């Protein structure tokens, strides 16, 4: 079975980055620092990382700010400087207290924002389609998810008019306080800085807290696409926005390919901008009671932000491995786009970012009806399609309804980060299955 249900590269067979694994292994077992089997820079790096642990061990629990200073520097460096904005951006990024490591992604930390006892209930605007854990998490926190639809015709673009409509729809139902954005999207979409500009303006006007999930920031493929962080857009917009819009942006090692796609390490961080200092005090308590994220995860994050440089012994291999991954991904998104669009009743927007394809199934009403009747449990056509695809084609994908889609449309989602030969096999099976399916249910 080709399992492309989740965005887990290692499970799919992509190889981890040698340098990262060497450093992690040596951090775990420090006698390796003296091993000639490891390159010098890996050994030196290990010493640096261990040097930041009080007792020199990755087994100690450490308060959420251990790696903070270095992170700060790296992030400022990565943010291209620009004239008068420089100072402002520096102010925003050098406040150490504003970075927190979080292992579980955004939702478990947004409990400060979501007031379970509020009446009317707190609402969060979320994109459709969206990562399927999102709605569950929001509900768990006692809030209401208010969907806004990304425009499939425009390559899953976010349109401010749609945000407006969503906000209107919330009237009388809940009190929206936050706008959740996934950039690049999961399962689809990547936003331009223009769009970011409009979104920030919208958030400012409507008094919404911006929650921006940027874990896929390294996965950008489109020719004219560039990842622009919301924080950067915010600071470049200058006052009054840059000093007032409350923003929380998230990044993680699970989806970064200059990191290691180490989902299993569960490491990420959140940057908080323009939050009320009084509130920050409580957020700090929340983070400290929930105990730190794994030290290995924090180290992986550090390696992600500060990889080998030209001249370092590990640089060439590192660069080669990264390039390899990138080549595979760029190749895969092209192939998926080609193949899916060549099949009848199947279409796919160009995949410009993220780790998934979210192609659309075009089924005639007759086909839909027939499928519903055939389906054992009368499930929707996309679920039916995915179940059949798994059973007959041996490809494990996710049905569109799990991520949300416009009423009456059907999609499937699958991860595109698999080795090239696996992707070819996947596409072969998918094509063959699809043709049969379309014939049977025309």
């Amino acid at each position, binding site marked *: 079975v080709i399992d492309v249900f989740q965005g887990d590269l290692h499970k799919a067979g992509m190889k981890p980055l040698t340098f990262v694994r060497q450093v992690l292994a040596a951090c775990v077992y420090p006698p390796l620092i003296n091993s000639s089997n490891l390159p010098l820079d890996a050994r030196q790096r290990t010493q640096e990382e261990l040097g930041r642990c009080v007792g020199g061990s990755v087994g100690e629990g450490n308060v959420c700010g251990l790696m903070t200073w270095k992170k700060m520097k790296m992030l400022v460096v990565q943010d291209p400087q620009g004239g008068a904005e420089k100072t402002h951006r520096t102010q925003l990024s050098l406040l150490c207290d504003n970075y927190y490591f979080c292992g579980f992604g955004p939702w478990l930390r947004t409990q400060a924002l979501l007031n379970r006892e509020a009446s009317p209930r707190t609402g969060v605007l979320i994109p459709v389609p969206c990562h399927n854990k999102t709605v569950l998490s929001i509900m768990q926190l006692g809030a209401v998810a208010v969907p806004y639809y990304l425009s499939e015709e425009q390559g899953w673009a976010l349109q401010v008019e749609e945000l407006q409509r969503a906000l209107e729809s919330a009237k009388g139902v809940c009190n929206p306080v936050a706008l959740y954005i996934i950039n690049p999207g999961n399962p689809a979409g990547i936003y331009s800085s223009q769009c970011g500009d409009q979104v920030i303006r919208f958030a400012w006007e409507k008094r919404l807290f911006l929650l921006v999930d940027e874990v896929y920031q390294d996965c950008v493929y489109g020719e004219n696409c560039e990842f622009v962080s919301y924080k950067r857009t915010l600071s470049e917009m200058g006052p009054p926005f840059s000093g007032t819009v409350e923003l929380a942006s998230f990044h993680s090692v699970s989806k970064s390919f200059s990191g290691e796609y180490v989902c299993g390490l569960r490491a990420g961080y959140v940057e908080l901008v323009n939050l009320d200092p009084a509130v920050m005090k*409580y957020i700090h308590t929340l983070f400290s009671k929930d105990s730190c994220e794994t030290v290995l995860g924090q180290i992986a994050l550090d390696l992600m932000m500060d990889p080998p440089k030209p001249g370092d012994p590990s640089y060439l291999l590192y660069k080669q491995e990264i390039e390899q991954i990138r080549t595979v991904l760029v190749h895969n998104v092209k192939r998926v786009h080609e193949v899916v669009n060549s099949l009848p009743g199947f279409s796919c927007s160009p995949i410009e970012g993220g780790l998934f394809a979210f192609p659309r199934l075009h089924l005639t009403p007759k086909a839909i009806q027939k499928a519903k009747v055939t389906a054992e449990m009368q499930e929707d056509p996309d679920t039916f399609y995915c179940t059949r695809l798994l059973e007959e084609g041996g490809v494990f994908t996710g049905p569109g309804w799990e991520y949300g889609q416009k009423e009456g449309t059907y999609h499937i989602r699958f991860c595109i980060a698999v080795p090239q030969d696996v992707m070819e096999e996947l596409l072969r099976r998918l094509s063959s299955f699809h043709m049969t399916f379309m014939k049977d249910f025309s």
Partner: protein
Amino acid sequence: MSQQAVNGVSHRGRVLTLDSMNPNVKRVEYAVRGPIVQRAVQLEKELKEGVKKPFTEVIKANIGDAHAMGQKPITFFRQVLALCSYPALLEDSKFPEDAKQRARRILEACGGHSIGAYSASQGIECIRQDVAHYIEKRDGGIPSNPDNIYLSTGASDAIVTILKLLVCGEGRDRTGVMISIPQYPLYSAALADLGAVQINYYLDEDNCWSLNITELRRALSAAREHCNPRVLCIINPGNPTGQVQSRQCIEDVIRFAKEEHLFLMADEVYQDNVYAEGCQFHSFKKVLFEMGPEYSNTVEMASFHSTSKCYMGECGFRGGYMEVINLDPEVKAQLIKLVSVRLCPPVPGQALLDLVVNPPQPDEPSYATFMKERTAVLSALAEKARLTEQIFNTVPGITCNPVQGAMYTFPRVTLPQKAIDKAKELGLVPDMFYCMRLLDEEGICLVPGSGFGQREGTYHFRMTILPPTEKLKVVLQKIQEFQLRFTQEFS
């Protein structure tokens, strides 16, 4: 500072303010990393900057972080984890064969043979099976079902997850959770966060912090007036008190839970940390089953363990598990759903847990070193426990119960009335005042008893027994000197 504020324009209202914030968050406090630690960090910063202080280092005896205090990791565990992190090392002859075998087995069970892959939300299956075997062996053969084992991110994650399932209801029907006073503040923080009702039952300081059924009954009936008590939490061995419950006591608690229809949460993370003569760890599960089917078929329970304590001290790996007993199958389905939202516990932590429950056996090459290291850690802790109790009891104004187990001492300190008054003047709880002064004067960071709960009018502090023996002796002496000075100053 926003441009507007700089310009003197009134600040446009924020979305997230103290008023609009989730009110439960305001109720959350976590003393172990609270204000006193923040002060300690501040002092460390100042020391680094060269500011002169009456001490050269801040000794953080506040948190149960063994490695930060110099405890060495277990070689075998780290070897296997290194092999798992960088499998190319499997070719390195410097690693023993038994370590390689275990690494291969773990990698085999991981997606893509990598610890970088997500695992199943409940945890890697073969590891859950190993945990179940470990429990069976530990409990004299009483069966353990791997389906009832949920791997977690440290024990804290599992504890909060279960509480989430248990807390419900409004007003008088709101779930009440019984916790021991003194308690480990994760519980009070989690209850505050979830908006549950905290029901305090007091441990008996005059009797070695033992648990008293009469006191449980008192707390329960009082609580029934204003909430719906459904849960009883026990930490055994205890934190911060270190008491190891007798078998009889555990039976009494189980009986009580059954009579009063309470869900039992048994926090057993310190199960290997038992030092006192005549004390022994009895797992709640074992006792439950030995009490016969009337109890073992009905009492609902969750027990918790972790890789952060005992002889491993690997807090940074966030490894742990819980075993649930007699959980309603439909609730189990909800539990699976809950844990799936956070995807999976860190895989290195799961791997480490596997080694803890499946350590080197007598016939394996790494056995001798492993036992040596394990014994060294545990016997050092036992010695420090004894030393601490002995020394504190010689200090006038400080009384200390025997540290039977765990990693802490929770001595009682008698504060002169003048000191209490002074504290009030400064708006500080008296033991916080005491601890802050100790920190400022001697650079020793402890946690005031108020962070754990204590009987009204009594004051305590919690100190870990983790610093290396020589350093611990120095710490004890400094506290002694401080205590004398303090008492004199406020006499």
